[in-house]
């Protein structure tokens, strides 16, 4: 890509341009990501009540977090469980994408309908599903009883074991259309000639999928995973609307716990410590995903 520039001045101009182009985005991230994170990092080492100047606390909050706080442990675990929903959603998206990629009648209509849940406002999604899951008059209970899967209605969102899976289901419903579209993009970018060559070599369709389609879809799937992680931040809205973290703390995610600690209980210092842990977790996870999808996979290559 390097274009050789004879004159140093030109190089200077080029680098000015580059930094100029980067400036707006970097400014946004500096203001709204990096500085806040640093602020949280510092605050997590202090005692700070709203009305008084902060005081050094050392690792006090972290000690409390790991030694005493079982709500923290539960919300950490819930967050991980919630993220497991993301690969499930992607697998579904992949299956649907394979189906709507076939040359069949009405595939554009199928695509439109399946994508339709994505533009729905998350808060509204929460309200709709709150109603569908309702114990007394919810459609889901009615349907499950009708087909004989359950014999009395379940309080899905008030049940300690069902509440979290229910919310995971909703978040999959909301985002599966986007996964489908992203994977579809990947599918259409695979040159058909590769399949023809494979057919000549006698590969059956199962082998074609695992040997050609799946490896070539890696970048798309990686993108889906990243979007899935970011989307799990949006799970805040769903939990806020549907359960408020309950029953008990069965649907408490790290993010809702941070919100509660900071805004309901006004313990901003403690919330800062949870934030730092949360950030480290997500960072580790991205790194892991990046490694699994082949190091410098897909759109996000570091070179």
């Amino acid at each position, binding site marked *: 890509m390097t274009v050789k520039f004879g004159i140093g001045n*030109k190089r200077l*101009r*080029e680098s*000015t*341009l580059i930094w*100029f182009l980067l400036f707006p985005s970097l400014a946004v991230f500096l203001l709204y990501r990096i500085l806040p994170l640093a602020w949280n990092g510092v605050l997590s080492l202090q*005692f700070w*009540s*709203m*009305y*008084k*100047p902060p*005081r050094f606390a050392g690792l006090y909050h972290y000690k*409390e977090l790991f030694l*005493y706080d*079982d*709500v923290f442990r539960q919300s950490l675990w819930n967050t991980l469980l919630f993220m497991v929903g993301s690969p499930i959603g992607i697998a579904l998206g992949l299956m649907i994408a394979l189906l709507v990629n076939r040359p069949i009648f009405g595939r554009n209509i199928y695509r439109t309908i399946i994508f339709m849940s994505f533009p729905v406002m998350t808060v509204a999604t929460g309200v709709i599903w709150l109603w569908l899951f309702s114990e007394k008059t919810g459609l889901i209970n009615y349907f499950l009883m009708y087909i004989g899967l359950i014999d009395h209605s379940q*309080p899905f969102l*008030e049940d*300690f074991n069902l509440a979290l899976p229910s919310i995971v289901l909703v978040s999959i419903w909301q985002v599966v259309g986007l996964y489908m579209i992203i994977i579809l993009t990947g599918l259409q970018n695979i040159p058909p000639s590769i399949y023809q060559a494979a057919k000549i070599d006698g590969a059956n369709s199962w082998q074609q999928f695992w040997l050609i389609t799946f490896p070539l879809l890696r970048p798309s799937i990686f993108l889906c995973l990243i979007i899935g992680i970011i989307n799990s931040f949006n799970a805040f809205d769903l939990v806020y609307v549907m359960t408020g973290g*309950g*029953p*008990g*703390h069965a649907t408490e995610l790290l993010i809702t716990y941070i919100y*509660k600690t*900071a*805004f*309901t*209980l*006004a*313990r*901003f210092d403690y919330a800062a410590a949870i934030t730092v842990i949360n950030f480290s977790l997500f960072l580790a996870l991205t790194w892991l995903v990046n490694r699994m999808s082949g190091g410098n996979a897909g759109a996000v290559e570091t070179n």
Partner: protein
Amino acid sequence: MPFRASAAFTVIAALISTLLALSGCSNESEPVQNKIVVLTFNMPHYKDGFSRWVAEFHKLHPDIEVEQIDRKGSNWGAFYHTQVISGTAPDIIDTQGGAWLQYASQGGLLDLTPFLEKDAEFTANFYPELLQSWIYEGQNYGIPLYFTKTLLFYNKLMFQEAGITSPPNSFDQLMEYAYKMTKGEKSGFMTLNFDWLYWPLFAMNGIDLVTPDLRHAAFNTPKAIALIERLAKATKDGAISNISWTGRWVEPNSMFAAGQIGMLQAHSTALLWMLSNTSWINENTIGFAQMPGNWSTPNAHALHISADSKYPQAAWDFIKIATSGEGAYSLGISLNNLTGDRFVNEKILDYFSQTKPIVVPLLRTQQEHLNTLVGNWPLANDAEIKEALYPELQSALLNHKSAADALSRAEKKVNHILSRDDRTAQSQSSVSGGQ
């Protein structure tokens, strides 16, 4: 090929300025002089009354503007806390339940004792018990705005059907009646659960939250385990509606209003809600009684002044307008609630005996037995303790955990919070000592 950075810059600058123009002129910075800000708690229906308070206030302070900000319960805290940390705490805040304790203990609220002492005439109007419930470490931080406490609503039609003639006198009787009225979709008993409203059930069984010195949890007793096991079993049997432990406000009330619940423990405001939503409720169909043992949890509101308010005297004058005389009267009749002012309450009761007789006996229950209020411990970390305890109780009441397990976990958590409270309190006092 030269880079035409300047041209690119022009284009982008143009786009950005378009964006800025698009965003409108709504970001005017407000002048901060001569204004008091009043943060109210879920009073969307009282806009007119509030402006009457302001008109009254302007007779005393024509040069000071009043800005009202109203927030719903769920957003109130988030809004107030961000205002505080950005140094713009509202001058007057309206709190519900025990949230004020945290603010008072951390030095965020103004001690109103000197004002109360100076204004003896104003102070004498209030129920002493009510004024006392806003005292933390000997100093008074709040003036009662309006006042409700829990009571037992009962469905007379369901009582008749089950052959019950009078409301229960003991916890055992309460459970017995609840079972008697339970049938199919109908449940015998339901309670609200937020802000300690369920605590009378514990109090009438002789269970305390904390030791008298407020330093240790006191609720992990065999009696408490037995009580929770009993409640959990009744919930499983449907005698207590499970909405009791998961519901909020509208859902439980509408179930009672739909005639599906025999007895509902709620505060007086629930009746107003039900009257507005069904037409079958009248003196013949619904009754009010104290819970057995006359235990009740207040769900009171008070006004407070922020410690760093620039106009404490003006704020105090505003509070006086809102909590006594005409101001309190108009609030009371519009919200169907009693106020902290004894004499205003008589007028409110007069008004209702003419316009809405059904609420008079209800409001009378609110004036009685102010000495058996529970759920208002002067604990600085009331909110945190509530958050730690209730989810554990909930999991036991909904039969997810054993009562013993839930209580011992809750005890551990509450003890930890109480011990930490000591520690942070010390650290804070050392800070203020250093200043």
